[in-house]
């Protein structure tokens, strides 16, 4: 048997007495029970209520069971002695295809919701500097993203397809970076390849890749990965001329990540983890086997660690100071915090749960109960395969992967992010999931190279997730179509009621907000109209949801319209807009029902 240097005897190893009740089968049964409960609660009971607290607690139970089982059971040897024999071009090509193909049909989605707002800010800005100074739609400091929107507007007229192509390209680059870093951290290109493939096709990434407004997460992840790669190279490079350049590059990439999105705030923590946990005690033997190139971390010095951490903290402090000054505070989302997400790591747990089990409940419900059960069971079996292989991952690296996920989820932890049954808000999970992708790769590498060892199951998981991604893009295409229809109907209404005095003022109700988790016109309908008509038109949305510039239906019921003002209702089914009442011709007040 080919025994890896990482093989460690577990508490039960050795023959003879001291047999205890827990063996591998018992562990799998216990994990299976928890997994079944998790899946059942999430999928088949009352998903909307269940995820309010039960789902994350169940994921915690699952993680606890997995880690305790891993600590109690004897460690099996890693089978990663052989290296993948594929030529590099084939490896890189496979990753590019995996990142591009499942998202290819997102090119025709068009704009939805916030896209219109950002596009209008870019169109309205007099210069690139003005666009970069914009606070976005709420109170954000993302100059790089705004620069991207401005450049898109000036270079290709802001056409949505350009944004979609850019998002796919950056996602592809990110997948390649996941591979490059994973290869160094895991030490095997086979594991790194599978991790990168999973990252490339993962259905949780549909929102950030398909929605231009969420491109900030994709861009921020790209720069964060570049920063990680530079630090890692710095760490494994012998003292000499290239090291200052590498450190400078790492810091510059970190700053660019922060300027793309504040999600990179916790990156210094991950850098510390990579530096401290990037190698383990057994890797000294590995160094002897594979040469000095794979064991630079063994030569690390305390001074170097302090230098790297100190430099990152200075950049972070400078960024935070600038942000506080520019926004008059930390800015960002002002969503209410809840008891659970304040005291409990609910976001990272939800993220782990959704990464392992990316079920779009509303789409699955349309499959019929038998097909849905089969699909969910297959996915649960895949999760059990993950858990059963955790003992192949060295302890220090396991902490590195899980620690990365939890640290990178901190920025979104501070507000009420709750991935729902329709996988909304998953853009916040784009950056943290790099840790889970590497964990998957490490696990596969530990199981061994080849179809019989890990290749078949890993390939099935990746193929299934790619299929899910293709499927999950479909609601976005429909959302784009609905948004275009509503904008066209509004533009037609404006054109029909334009007088020599100017365009009419519209108060619009009945706009579709979302379609199966994909936003349609939850925000930014007025900006969409501005873009469609090429000028600023007075449009306000009548909605009970808190929207900047929106009018509450209770208020609209009392609103006195002046001549040239129209209260109109949009019907998404017929894609038509009709006048409810207009200024100068008061009609019956629309019924609000008195209910919120």
């Amino acid at each position, binding site marked *: 048997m080919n025994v890896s240097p990482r093989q460690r005897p577990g508490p039960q190893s050795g023959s003879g007495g001291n047999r205890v009740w827990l063996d591998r089968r018992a*562990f799998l049964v216990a994990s299976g029970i928890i997994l079944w409960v998790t899946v059942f609660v999430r999928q088949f009971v009352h998903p909307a209520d269940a995820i309010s607290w039960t789902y994350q607690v169940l994921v915690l139970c699952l993680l*606890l069971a997995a880690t305790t089982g891993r600590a109690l059971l004897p460690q099996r040897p890693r089978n990663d002695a052989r290296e993948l024999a594929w030529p590099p071009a084939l490896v890189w090509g496979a990753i590019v295809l995996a990142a591009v193909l499942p998202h290819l049909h997102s090119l025709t989605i068009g704009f939805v919701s916030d896209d219109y707002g950002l596009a209008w800010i870019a169109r309205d800005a007099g210069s690139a500097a003005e666009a970069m100074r914009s606070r976005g739609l709420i109170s954000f400091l993302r100059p790089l993203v705004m620069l991207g929107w401005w450049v898109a507007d000036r270079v290709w007229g802001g056409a949505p397809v350009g944004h979609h192509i850019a998002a796919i390209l950056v996602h592809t680059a990110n997948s390649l970076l996941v591979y490059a870093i994973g290869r160094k951290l895991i030490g095997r290109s086979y594991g790194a390849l599978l991790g990168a493939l999973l990252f490339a096709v993962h259905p949780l990434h549909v929102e950030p890749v398909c929605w231009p407004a969420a491109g900030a997460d994709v861009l921020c992840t790209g720069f964060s990965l570049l920063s990680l790669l530079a630090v890692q190279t710095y760490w494994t490079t012998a003292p000499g001329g290239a090291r200052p350049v590498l450190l400078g590059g790492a810091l510059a990439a970190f700053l660019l990540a922060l300027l793309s999105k504040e999600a990179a705030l916790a990156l210094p923590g991950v850098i510390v983890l990579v530096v401290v946990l990037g190698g383990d005690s057994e890797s000294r033997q590995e160094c002897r086997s594979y040469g000095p190139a794979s064991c630079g971390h063994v030569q690390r010095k305390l001074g170097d660690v302090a230098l790297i951490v100190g430099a990152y903290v200075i950049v972070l402090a400078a960024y935070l100071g600038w942000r506080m000054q520019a926004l008059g505070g930390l800015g960002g989302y002002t969503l209410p915090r809840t008891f659970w997400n304040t005291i409990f790591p609910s976001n990272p747990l939800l993220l782990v749960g959704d990464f392992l089990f990316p079920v779009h409940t509303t789409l699955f419900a349309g499959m019929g109960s038998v097909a849905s059960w089969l699909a969910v069971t297959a996915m649960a079996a895949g999760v059990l395969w993950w858990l059963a292989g955790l003992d192949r991952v060295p302890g220090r690296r396991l902490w590195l992967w899980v620690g990365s996920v939890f640290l990178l989820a901190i920025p979104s932890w501070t507000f009420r992010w709750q991935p729902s049954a329709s996988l909304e808000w998953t853009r916040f999970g784009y950056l943290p999931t790099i840790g889970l992708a590497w964990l998957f790769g490490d696990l596969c590498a530990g199981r061994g190279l080849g179809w019989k060892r890990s290749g078949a199951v890993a390939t099935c998981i990746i193929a299934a997730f790619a299929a899910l991604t293709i499927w999950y893009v479909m609601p976005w295409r429909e959302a784009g179509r609905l948004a275009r229809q509503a904008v066209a109907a509004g533009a037609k209404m404006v054109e029909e009621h334009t007088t020599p005095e100017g365009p009419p003022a519209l108060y619009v109700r009945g706009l579709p907000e979302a379609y199966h988790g994909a936003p349609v016109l939850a925000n930014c309908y007025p900006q969409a109209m501005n873009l469609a008509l090429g000028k600023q038109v007075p449009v306000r949305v009548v909605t009970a949801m808190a929207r900047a510039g929106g009018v509450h239906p209770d208020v609209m019921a*009392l609103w006195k319209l002046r001549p040239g003002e129209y209260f109109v209702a949009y019907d998404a089914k017929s894609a038509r807009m009709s006048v409810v009442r207009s200024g100068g011709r008061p009609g019956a007040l629309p019924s609000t029902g008195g209910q919120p």
Partner: protein
Amino acid sequence: MRRIALESLLLISVCGAVAILVTVLVMDAQKPDLRFAQQVAAGAQKLFESGQREAAISALDEVLQRTPESLVARRELAMELVASGQWAEAATQLRLVLSASPRDASAARKLAEALERLGDLRGAITYSRLACRLDPENGVYWIRLAATLLRSGDHEEALRAAQRAVRYAAGVPEAYVQLGFAKWQAGDMAGAKSAFLDALDLDPRNLPALDALRKLGAGPASRPGRPGSAPLESARLISNRLDSVE
């Protein structure tokens, strides 16, 4: 020792998961009752709208005895009691609704109305403020708060509330009328006149604004502030109109 701790942790994880499953299933088992209560609430609403008010209220009373945790039925009962003018009972039910659903701005607003009708101005202001805090972009809540504050004589806060009302309900004449009254009480006659004119600009037949402008033309002797004075009566009329719309 370490082994015992780890094994216990594994057992706790399994037991925790099973306990959660049992909890969720028990919650699910209660759903048919809640669903039934929801259906009764929907039926009661139709009965109430068709004029059979007592039958609707009694149906809701009955279903709440069976399923007291049904928030939908309790909320419907509270709203029907408000619409029937049974203020004391409505206030009791609305307090229960708010204790179960503390972010229900509409319930807070209705409770404020019920308390104001019962003469508890302080309570009305408290819940009206709560409604504004929960749904700050609903201009009608600000108009209502301004009206209640005016009645209580707190013209400074009434002015602030009226300004928010104008911000969120720029097309509603009542917002300008409240602003006018608040300015009038604060002694800003020119500002009051301008606000009433704004209201008339939106609605040339707005009686409170016309009345107030007529009185303003009569000189500062008619300045509001005393209970029962004409502008405050107008404010009360406006409140009634708001209540009928909500």
